[in-house]
């Protein structure tokens, strides 16, 4: 033993002699690390997933500097009383202007100029249509009044509403005209906050202020009015909180499940607590490293804790299972620790190294999310490994001494190698059949590009956002094109709108500049309005005989027909700020998509189409959709690349380590078959991969490789060639390690956030596949080859004919 495992002996001696010092050193390091770890923040903004100097990020910053970004907090106000809705919107707008978190308020139809010039925003043909409606209405009542009128047509009373008439510019739909939908009028007030989307603290304060103001307004109005909040600020906040709540709930459940499993297996709370404590120390170090190296966790590296917990507990399990086994036969604790180090030291180190190298290889990606994740997870794994390798035995020894604990003497069950040909062949056949089935499922694998499918089910803010979109017929996720001035913005908007007219399949809905808010053909329209006003004037006698409701409508229309010219100066300040910023140094053209960019594929096509327009060099394209698409492109490009590189690096490390290709194949076989079976399960259950659950793939890879290394070590180093032998110790550890991971991910199935739930599902199938291939299929395959070919090869070798 001394000759074969000098490092194991040295490590065991080190732990035996310095257990107290080791723990003291670890405690000291933890005390030092803890303040840094505690400072580690989560930056939930997806902007932090790209490098700060990425063009889309710098352009977005420029846009934010100029006009405060493209995101709003949208307040939707609804009531069956149109006047109440209008009044509530005006009251809220006035109050919101005083909120400390609000940069500007866009209640574009609240301004007097807009109100009095409302009809000028209709298209000329719609004004003619309105004229026709007036004609029809008057004609209808005149016919009704004619004592000799013979009605043969069953004519319905013509409606005088202007809601269904076509607006000259689609951009006017956004809050432009209060429309009735299912007996409710809706108005939206757009609040532009001063803080970024990811500043949830300020968002929370803003929501509170809006809700307080809304409550006051509701009390002051006679008709019931409802207020709803939505927009990126609200949906992002809600998502963040749902994820946080899910993490708390499912995290707690995961820990409970893992603790129960550990306790059921080891039946000693001291062992469970020792393993959690040593792993916890490693995680604190990893967090401190993250704080010092990167400074924060992004939405991808935020899964670090779960991943470190999942992979780190495996080290502890392998150590404890072996230690428990060795302790029963070893004469003393030192020998048990030494034999444990000898048994699992090398595979654990190989596993830790390959997994961390796999994670490190992610750092070559341009995608900040992967780079940070790779760096922190790579170092974190090694730190957890170290803390468990030395911390766990030290804790066990110290607690043994403190509590004067003696290990139970249990008879050791000898594993008699049995060759069960029928069972092995059946397992192998079933595995091969399922593998073949899984191959057929690969073309059926589906990737869910729609982010809506990842959100909380029936999330109120998202449902409201969709209703608003449907209500106004505009998708409120424009991309901004920053131009140097008003004239160039006008020309660019015209050019894009012309392009839209000539490209029916385009994903652009319309382009709007500040001039889109100034009605066109005003002279012609005003003249037409005057004609209508005159016609109504002439028919005053008929009008006076109508019912009160119709008379009121006609009177309202008469007021609107008095519209005078609407100029650039009449555009409300809040709206001008959106296009030209406070400094008025730029002029923005907003290009609106005609489909929801919550669907990643739509978003990518939309941005590509914009880029393909080859805009002049002095025009900058900016906006969150651009950043979002850049992230999707990088994710799609770098995920397979990162996986391939990780896998390549792992193969290389294993080749260097084992210097034997077949060994590497054997080590990798559980993970290869595991991934294949995962595809089979995914295809069978119509499971969809998505941008969130892809994060777990490196973890499945890491655990799969771990399993392979332990199984291979058991088989090759310890010459265990039957399924039963392989599973006797290492298999138990692999099973327990996998079960704890599966249990942890199963808890995520209860998550409200669909992305998290899908993560749980993928984790469940991934680790379950890995478990089945590691402890059943591959050992059966080993035993099968031991039975047939390997024996034959050995005998041929022996006879010298090989």
């Amino acid at each position, binding site marked *: 033993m001394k000759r074969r495992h000098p490092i194991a002996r040295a490590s065991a001696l080190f732990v035996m002699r310095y257990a107290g010092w080791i723990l003291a050193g670890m405690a000291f390091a933890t005390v030092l690390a803890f303040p840094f770890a505690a400072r580690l923040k989560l930056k939930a903004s997806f902007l932090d997933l790209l490098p700060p100097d990425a063009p889309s990020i710098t352009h977005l910053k420029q846009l934010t500097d100029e006009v405060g970004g493209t995101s709003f907090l949208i307040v939707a106000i609804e009531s069956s009383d149109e006047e109440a809705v209008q009044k509530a919107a005006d009251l809220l707008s006035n109050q919101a202007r005083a909120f400390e978190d609000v940069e500007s308020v866009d209640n574009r139809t609240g301004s007097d100029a807009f109100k009095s010039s409302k009809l000028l925003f209709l298209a000329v043909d719609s004004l003619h249509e309105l004229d026709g409606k007036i004609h029809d209405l008057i*004609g209808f009542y*005149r*016919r009704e*009044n*004619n*004592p*000799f*009128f*013979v*009605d*043969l*047509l069953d004519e319905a009373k013509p409606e005088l509403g202007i809601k269904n008439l076509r607006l000259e510019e689609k951009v006017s739909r956004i809050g432009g005209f209060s429309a009735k939908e299912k007996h409710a009028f809706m108005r939206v007030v757009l609040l532009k906050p001063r803080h970024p989307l990811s500043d949830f603290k300020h968002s929370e304060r803003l929501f509170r202020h809006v809700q307080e103001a809304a409550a006051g307004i509701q009390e002051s109005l006679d008709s019931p009015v409802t207020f709803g909040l939505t927009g990126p600020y609200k949906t992002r906040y809600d998502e963040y909180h749902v994820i946080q709540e899910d993490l708390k709930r499912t995290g707690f459940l995961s820990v409970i499940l893992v603790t129960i499993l550990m306790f059921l297996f080891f039946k000693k709370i001291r062992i469970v607590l020792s393993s959690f404590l040593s792993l916890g120390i490693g995680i604190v170090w990893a967090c401190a490293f993250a704080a010092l190296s990167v400074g924060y966790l992004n939405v991808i590296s935020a899964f670090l804790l779960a991943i470190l917990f999942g992979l780190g507990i495996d080290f502890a399990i392998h150590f404890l299972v072996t230690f428990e086994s060795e302790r029963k036969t070893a004469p003393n604790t030192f020998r048990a620790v030494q034999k444990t180090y000898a048994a699992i030291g090398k595979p654990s180190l190989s596993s830790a190294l390959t997994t961390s190298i796999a994670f490190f290889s992610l750092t070559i990606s341009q995608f900040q999310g992967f780079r940070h994740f790779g760096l922190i997870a790579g170092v974190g794994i090694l730190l957890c490994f170290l803390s468990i390798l030395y911390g766990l035995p030290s804790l066990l020894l110290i607690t043994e001494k403190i509590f004067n604990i003696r290990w139970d003497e249990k008879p050791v069950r000898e594993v008699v190698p049995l060759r069960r040909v029928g069972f092995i062949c059946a397992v192998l056949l079933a595995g091969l059949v399922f593998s073949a089935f899984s191959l057929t499922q690969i073309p059926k694998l589906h990737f869910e590009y729609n982010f809506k499918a990842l959100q909380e089910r029936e999330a109120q803010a998202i449902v409201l956002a969709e209703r608003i979109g449907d209500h106004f017929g505009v998708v409120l996720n424009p991309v901004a094109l920053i131009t140097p001035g008003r004239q160039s913005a006008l020309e660019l908007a015209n050019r894009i709108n012309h392009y839209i007219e000539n490209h029916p399949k385009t994903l652009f809905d319309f382009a709007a500049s500040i001039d889109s808010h100034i009605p066109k053909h005003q002279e012609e329209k005003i003249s037409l309005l005057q004609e209508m006003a005159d016609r109504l004037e002439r*028919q005053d*006698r*008929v009008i*006076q*005989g109508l019912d009160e409701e119709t008379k009121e409508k006609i009177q309202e229309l008469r007021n609107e027909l008095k519209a005078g010219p609407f100029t650039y100066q009449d555009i409300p300040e809040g709206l001008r700020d959106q296009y030209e910023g406070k400094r008025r140094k730029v002029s923005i053209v907003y290009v609106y998509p005609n489909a929801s960019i919550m669907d990643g594929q739509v978003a990518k096509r939309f941005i590509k189409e914009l880029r393909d327009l080859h805009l002049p060099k002095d025009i900058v394209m900016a906006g969150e959709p651009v950043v979002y698409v850049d992230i999707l492109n990088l994710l799609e490009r770098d995920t397979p690349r990162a996986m391939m590189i990780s896998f390549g690096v792992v193969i290389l490390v294993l080749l260097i380590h084992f210097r034997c290709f077949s060994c590497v194949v054997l080590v990798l076989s559980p993970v290869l078959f595991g991934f294949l079976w995962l595809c089979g399960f995914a295809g069978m259950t119509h499971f969809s991969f998505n941008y969130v659950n892809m994060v777990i793939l490196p973890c499945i890879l890491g655990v799969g490789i771990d399993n392979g290394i332990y199984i291979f070590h058991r088989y090759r180093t310890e010459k265990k060639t039957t399924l039963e032998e392989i599973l006797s110790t290492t298999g138990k550890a692999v099973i327990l390690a996998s079960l704890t991971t599966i249990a942890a991910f199963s808890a995520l199935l209860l998550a409200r956030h669909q992305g998290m739930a899908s993560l749980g599902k993928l984790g469940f199938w991934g680790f379950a596949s890995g478990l089945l291939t590691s402890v059943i299929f591959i050992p059966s395959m080993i035993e099968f080859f031991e039975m047939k070919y390997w024996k034959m090869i050995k005998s041929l070798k022996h006879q010298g004919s090989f």
Partner: protein
Amino acid sequence: MIFKYIVSSFLRLLGIGVFCVSMLFAPAAIISAEVDSPKAVVETFLETLRAMEFPVSNSARHAQLVKKANAFLDLDAMGQKALRDHWEQASVEDRRDFLALLWQQIENRAYRKSHDFLGNLKVTYPESHEDSTGFVIKTVVRQEEKVLDAEVIYHLRQKEEGWKIDDVILDDVSLIEDLKYQFDKIIRDSSFSGLLKRMQERLDTAEKENQGGDL
């Protein structure tokens, strides 16, 4: 004395003769005596409408009044004008059916509506004048409750039988134009037979309503 007797006898006989003659031609005499001017036609027409009762309780009296009112309307001309080209294209049978149905529409539907419209309201005749095709009588129906005066203009044309109303205009909307609009639309959508069918359907409904329901 004898001369005086002869003269008085002659005058008595003449009077008797005149009486006999006048008795002989009484209906025509009454009418011609009352409606010898366009204004009188309109006045009598409106009074006749006002005299009707809805729902109809005395069918004989109602029929008499309808007949009287009809005599003031030139509905055949109004129907032809409203149909214009369709009249030319229609068969003799269709024309006959159309006019019969149009009369019935007026008798069963328009008269009731006009009766309701007039109610007990006062009608004044502020203006009347000749035009190139006949005579125009402007009437104002005073609706004090609604602080509203309805101005209804009757256009009359001289026919052999006397003055007859050939259009009614309320607030610039001519009855002929309105009928034309409706006829055109129905014929365009469902042919001339469709128009006859629609008119018959309306008539069936109106007849039921006139027997006791509301219009």
